[in-house]
């Protein structure tokens, strides 16, 4: 048997790696520039390429693989590790960035949110919202214990809907997915906020976030961002790191000199200042 050359190993992966690099670059540029258009571009890329084409999402199966130290072979699956390292590093640096624009399912529900009329949305009472966010941690603990005891990998089908991108499921699974997506029409990003075990794990990691979202002193009393946050991640003056997916909505508001009280107060205090005087703040963390 001829020895395997490095071209034979890397060649078939080259296109995949290039597209993954392009996607990660797009996601990061949209994040740094706080660009709405680029963000939607990366969401569409996430659903199309990372979702339906590749079905490459972080799943509880990967957590099971870590527990068993039983992960795919590195040299044949480089993109698997590139995404894994990116997800861990970005979570430590900025928080649940993965959930907000890299995960294909999260991207799908956010695109649903952008397309569906907002009058369908139900405002979840704040108390319920806060408590429901704990469900995902319970689910994470449950699947880990269940897996360690039974070693039944197939449990992933019942705790996460990512199999849908492979278009393979039993009738019961599709009915469950239909119900979940229907509920998502009324409660935005329902799965990501309340149920996702991977999101829960990243939420735990995001407690060490290095670059946090900046808050003004006016944020103590102002509620604009808290109301605008579709992830329910702002509670009074503070941002709940474990729930924040770095969607940029509040950071765009901070920068808006017409909406953010910080700028309104600042500009009113110095009426003589020329209109363009204070440069837009760098809200990038």
């Amino acid at each position, binding site marked *: *048997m001829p020895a395997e050359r490095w071209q034979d190993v890397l060649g*078939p992966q080259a296109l995949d790696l290039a597209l993954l690099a392009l996607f990660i670059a797009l996601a990061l540029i949209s994040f740094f520039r706080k660009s709405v258009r680029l963000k939607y571009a990366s969401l569409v890329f996430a659903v199309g390429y990372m979702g*339906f*084409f*590749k*079905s490459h999402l972080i*799943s509880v*199966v990967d957590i*099971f*693989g870590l527990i*068993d130290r*039983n*992960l*795919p*072979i590195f040299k*044949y*699956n480089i993109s*698997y590790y590139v995404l894994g390292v990116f997800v861990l590093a970005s979570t430590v640096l900025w928080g649940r960035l993965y959930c907000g624009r890299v995960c294909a399912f999260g991207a799908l529900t956010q695109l649903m949110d952008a397309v569906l009329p907002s009058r369908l949305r139900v405002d979840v009472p704040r108390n319920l919202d806060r408590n429901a966010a704990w469900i995902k941690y319970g689910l994470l603990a449950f699947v880990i214990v269940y897996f*360690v*005891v039974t*070693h039944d*990998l*197939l449990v*992933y089908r019942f705790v996460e809907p*990512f*199999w849908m*991108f*492979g278009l*393979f499921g039993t009738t019961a699974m599709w009915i469950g997915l239909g119900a979940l997506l229907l509920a998502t029409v009324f409660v935005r990003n329902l799965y990501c906020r309340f149920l996702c075990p991977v999101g829960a794990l990243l939420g735990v990691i995001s407690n060490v976030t290095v670059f946090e979202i900046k808050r003004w002193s006016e944020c103590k009393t102002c509620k604009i961002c808290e109301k605008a946050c579709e992830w329910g991640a702002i509670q009074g003056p503070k941002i709940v790191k474990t729930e924040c997916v770095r969607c940029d909505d509040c950071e765009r508001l901070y920068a808006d000199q017409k909406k953010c009280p910080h700028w309104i107060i600042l500009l009113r205090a110095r009426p003589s200042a020329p209109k363009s005087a204070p440069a837009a703040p760098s809200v990038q963390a």
Partner: protein
Amino acid sequence: MVKLSAPFVLVFAAVSSAVLLAATRIITNPKPDAELKQLFPSAAAFSPLAGDPLHYEAYATDPKTNPSAPRLGIAFWTTDMVPDEHGYHGPIHIIVGLDLKGTITGAIVDYDSEPYGYFSVEPPKFGAQFKGKTIRDPFVVGRDVDAVSRASISIASATRAIRDGSRLIAGKLLPEAAR
């Protein structure tokens, strides 16, 4: 709070490590009679798993009655040939038949612990597509091997195991095919 006794902790630790060890099956199916028959339907007898590398030999007539019975081909476990190969979750146990010319007579996935195995490597049509391939075929997933997204890691691993295992066996035991 209840204080845990030392024996209880020991038993618990032993049971949980046993469960952990049982995560992936280490031993291949010891009696794959039905599978061998499927790989070589015309064979009258098979040798036990033996030799270096480990393999089964298929014979047209029972070598016990006819010592000069000709070989029809060789069957082997991919896990014996390429033990380091594994998919998403541990090795995939595949029994492969090769005729004397190095053409695959069949590949049967006997056991796997792949998360997406039930729609990738487990359906009989996955193994069936390798029948008729030769050791010189490219074995590229997505080209001459069917791909299923979400399970590409499992499929790629099983395909490499069949390709590399067949080539190793042919190189060592099938002089006519390796020529």
